[in-house]
């Protein structure tokens, strides 16, 4: 049997069902990562590590009068869900939280969560300079959790319009806009 014909048939079926589902608008898949709640016992980071991560993420994206902080939008849970899906990343986050705590002890002799915001920023800035790769993990996942979050999307008036939904309304192109350009003589080199 030629398995590729089978793949091709499967592809054709998938195309037809995709078009049908898309037309019905039911394919707006929820963001699994942001949704579920974890208990401490079934997570790859312990309570202290989660607390370190929460305080660090909140310095990366803090709250202001209009916007929530990263952890208020569920950023720690977001990471825990990713670690569940991609357990290979766990050692990276454990190194990150260990590094933050080490640095905190070195700079201020205290746990990261006990520092004031200014000292926490100093700890993170040092890590940003000395361990840019590790710092990038913290920054990238904080931004990712934040800017894929439904409540943040609402606050910044962003509608993601995934392809499973109907798209935005847009005015059709108005050809009159080109009236001037249409009268420009040919601009290309004739050869």
């Amino acid at each position, binding site marked *: 049997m030629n398995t590729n014909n089978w793949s091709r048939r499967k592809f054709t079926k998938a195309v037809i069902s995709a078009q049908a589902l898309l037309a019905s608008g039911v394919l707006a898949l929820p963001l699994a990562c942001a949704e579920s709640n974890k208990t401490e016992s079934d997570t790859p980071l312990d309570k202290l590590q989660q607390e370190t991560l929460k305080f660090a993420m909140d310095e990366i994206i803090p709250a202001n009068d209009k916007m929530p902080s990263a952890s208020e939008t569920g950023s720690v849970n977001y990471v825990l869900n990713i670690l569940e899906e991609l357990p290979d990343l766990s050692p990276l986050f454990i190194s990150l939280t260990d590094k933050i705590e080490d640095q905190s002890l070195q700079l201020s002799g205290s746990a990261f969560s006990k520092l004031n915001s200014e000292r926490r920023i100093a700890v993170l800035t040092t890590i940003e300079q000395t361990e840019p790769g590790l710092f990038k993990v913290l920054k990238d996942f904080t931004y990712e959790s934040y800017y894929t979050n439904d409540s943040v999307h609402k606050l910044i008036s962003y509608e993601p319009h995934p392809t499973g939904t109907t798209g935005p309304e847009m005015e059709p192109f108005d050809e009159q806009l*080109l009236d001037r350009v249409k009268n420009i003589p040919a601009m290309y080199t004739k*050869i």
Partner: protein
Amino acid sequence: MNNDDIDVLVIGAGAAGAVVSWSLTEKGAKVVCLEQGGWVDPLSFPSLKPDYETHLTREGDFNLSPNLRNRKEDYPVTTDGENPPFIMMFNAVGGSTIHWQGIFPRFHPSDFKVKTLDGVADDWPISYWDLEPYYEFNDKMIGVSGLNGDPANPPRTKRPTPPLPLGKMGNTLVKGFEKLGWHWWVNDHGIISKQYKDRAACMLHGKCMFGCPMGAKATTDRTYWPLAIEKGAEIRTWSRVKEITVDNTGKAKGAIYFDKEGNIQEIKAKVVVVCCNGIGTPRLLLNSKSNLFPDGLGNGNGLVGKNFMVHPTHFINGIFEEAMDGHIGPMGSPLFSQEFYETDESRGFKRGYMLLGERTFGPLFQAQDIPWGKNHHAEFGKIFPHQIGLTVVADDLPEETNMVTLDDKEVDSNGISAAKATYSLSENSKQMLNHAVEKSTEVLMAAGAKEVIVPPATNLAHLMGTARMGTSEKNSVVDKNNKVHGIPNLYVVDGSSFTTGAGVNPTSTIMALALRAADKIWENAVHGKS
């Protein structure tokens, strides 16, 4: 199809491979295509999910770069040079059109004659007018949207579907171009604005680079391939070609490939057509060494892999007071300007560039350069949703020092040598980019921008020039019909065969060339020989 019956073996099922396979099957040839990737299930597209942007920023499955995607079917491409290129491509049925934006401009007639007109690089051995009927035919096959009548280009027929909407950002750019009295026009797009054949009209989501399950975007798995297969073409997916084989007279015999299970298979055909793109094609030719061809196939003059072109670019952003909603609308480009396309010696460089009004990705992407910490929200609020992008597509002239070679360390999942792409900007390109930055800033300011941000120069996903077409055996790898010099039944049909890069996106020209080459293959190597 029985292995002994094959007229034409096509390698690579992307834009060019699909066109060649369809055209030759339609004429009556027995065609088998070997493709290292598989069919992409449209229900697996990231564009279906609100978190689609994570695929841009994170390594893994749908990243634009094969080096960050690391699927089994991807091969590593290492980089070098003063301006190492960011490599983008997709390996599957449909090839890089799975990711592409569908911006569909044509070359200008002058692009084919740069030596004659400007004294640079080389002339193509064919002219715009040789390709013109094929451009037209291809536009109808895929249902291009747009508007005819642009004074910067030769006339073309009414576009099969009307232009896509401009949106707030497009209309704002129009104000800038109008104020300065510069040329602009709505882009031709490989995205249909109305239902066309059995494909649904674009619904304007703007997630096009993350897969278009609607089929509005012309990926070749939805356009040419279904027609080719209906006519009898066969695609063997998960089949990675290791080398093209030759007989003792120096004719191409077929290919040796790894199947899905990693077993070595051999296939024979009367004609072999390589469509693996501007990196995959030289890689395969260079990997096809034999006693007769110790430096790789078609490489007698050492030109395979040389003259690599990628279209240098700047992604320039204007920041406006008002919301511009640049993320709303199809992720192609609503409009372009070719005010600075043809050579004007007073500018200090030869040839020219196009400016594309470019939509932006969503908030995650736009936040990437925003500083963390106390000022984060204030800084983010300045740019989102207030940005308008202008992308420069600078004419990339060939340089022998820009090249694709085999990497001496890295290999793919089958142990085949990876590719290495070396690229440095020429002085001409640097001057051109400086001019483009100045002019982009001028038009964005004229449109009302309060600030213009110019990130460092980078490159587009356009892979060209590495098995160039030429007027003589000395200056090229293939002749005017895409046939490899010295090998009567081996053809290279993709962006590798470009003699020069022009200042426009390449795929309409790749597809037109593929239609023309298929006619020539049929006349000279299949039908003519039967």
